């Protein structure tokens, strides 16, 4: 098993060692807001995606292999009453989705899509190389809103 593991690592993951080194270095530079949201992320969880009042956004950042699921619960007036997320990715991606779910709550779905990744990045003081993590959150909100709109137009 150990040999197999070593072999497959050496064949597949050569590029990963460089990546890992970079990630380790940048971990120490995270802003405290990121660390807070990473260590105690708000709204981690899952809603039933078949619930007619739930919109689900599923997006990925292929460069880092991140995947983010963001879900919103929407009332009949189009207001977001609750939000949750499940993200597999770096600290910045998790912190960005945590912030995004905090911010969309209480907003209408039309307001929610105006949330810009730049604002999330600014709030978390993300460095330029991590901007795409906040973009993931912005796109996840948009995808979730698109999903609920589609559900509702199909229901009509």
């Amino acid at each position, binding site marked *: 098993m150990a040999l197999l593991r070593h072999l497959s690592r050496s064949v597949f993951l*050569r590029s990963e060692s460089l990546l890992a080194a970079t990630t380790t270095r940048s971990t120490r530079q995270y802003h405290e807001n990121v660390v807070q949201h990473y260590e105690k992320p708000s709204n981690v969880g899952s809603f039933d995606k078949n619930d007619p009042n739930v919109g689900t956004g599923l997006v990925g950042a292929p460069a880092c292999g991140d995947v983010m*699921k963001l879900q919103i619960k929407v009332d009949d007036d189009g207001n977001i009453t609750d939000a949750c997320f499940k993200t597999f990715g770096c600290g910045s991606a998790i912190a960005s989705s945590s912030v995004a779910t905090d911010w969309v709550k209480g907003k209408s779905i039309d307001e929610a899509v105006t949330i810009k990744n730049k604002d999330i990045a600014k709030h978390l003081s993300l460095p330029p190389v991590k901007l*795409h993590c906040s973009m993931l959150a912005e796109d996840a909100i948009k995808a979730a809103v698109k999903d609920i709109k589609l559900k509702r137009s199909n229901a009509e």
Partner: protein
Amino acid sequence: MRGSNNLSLILRTSRAILASDVLRQRVHSVPPRLTQAARVDVLVSRATHATPFLSAAHDFYRSYCDRTGTGGVNACWSCGSRRDVSTHFFCASCGVILPPSPESNYFEVLNMPPIYDVDQDDISTKLRTLQLQLHPDRFSSKSKEEQGMAENQSALVNEAVAVLRSPLRRAQYMLQGAGIEVGEGHEGTIEDPELLMEVMEQRMAIEEADGDEELRPMRQHNLQQLEESRKQVSAAFADGNVQEAAHETIRMQYLVKISDTILDKLSST
């Protein structure tokens, strides 16, 4: 062990040559946040004029050579005779060490055909031979500049070997040459429900897994998927279908990430 034998078997299988006209397509900047399929469509539809094969590598070498500060890159610095792609390392006329050639890509550095299914044994042989030829001991009596050139060449060989040995990096590199960035340079997001759903489910299963006994079957499954993915990438390149190759390489990136996660958890339990 059976898994790794299969891996090397696939690696040794040689396939048809890449449709080089597809690889020569030029690509301009693309709106970053299209879905992957749409993105690749744009990339390919914009691909028109021919540029040198693997232009990203080409640029890399140019800047690489500029840094060495040895002047003209197409002529031997010592005797002035013209160099061609067959003389990567030493001047064909006077035999001195040369700086890395701006004309070569990694396949040319190792003097191999530019196909996805590279011969792994051949890479090992080339590496051994070149390491001997470029070994610092052989340049101990030469000038500082020559020692520097040998070092740069040696670093380049190592990088070429590292990229061409890895199924993922090799695919990323070949796509880069076709103007499609799927690796670290890809800044966009994708909405590929089928792939992302699968990744999400697997990542959750790994997270919830309790101990090695539950992780080992996941590891096996992941290895099978990686092999399958490599076959797909290989077939796509062999068909000259860069869109499909890009799509499948992104899948492979996710699978490698899953592999990483499993291994991290395996070793920590």
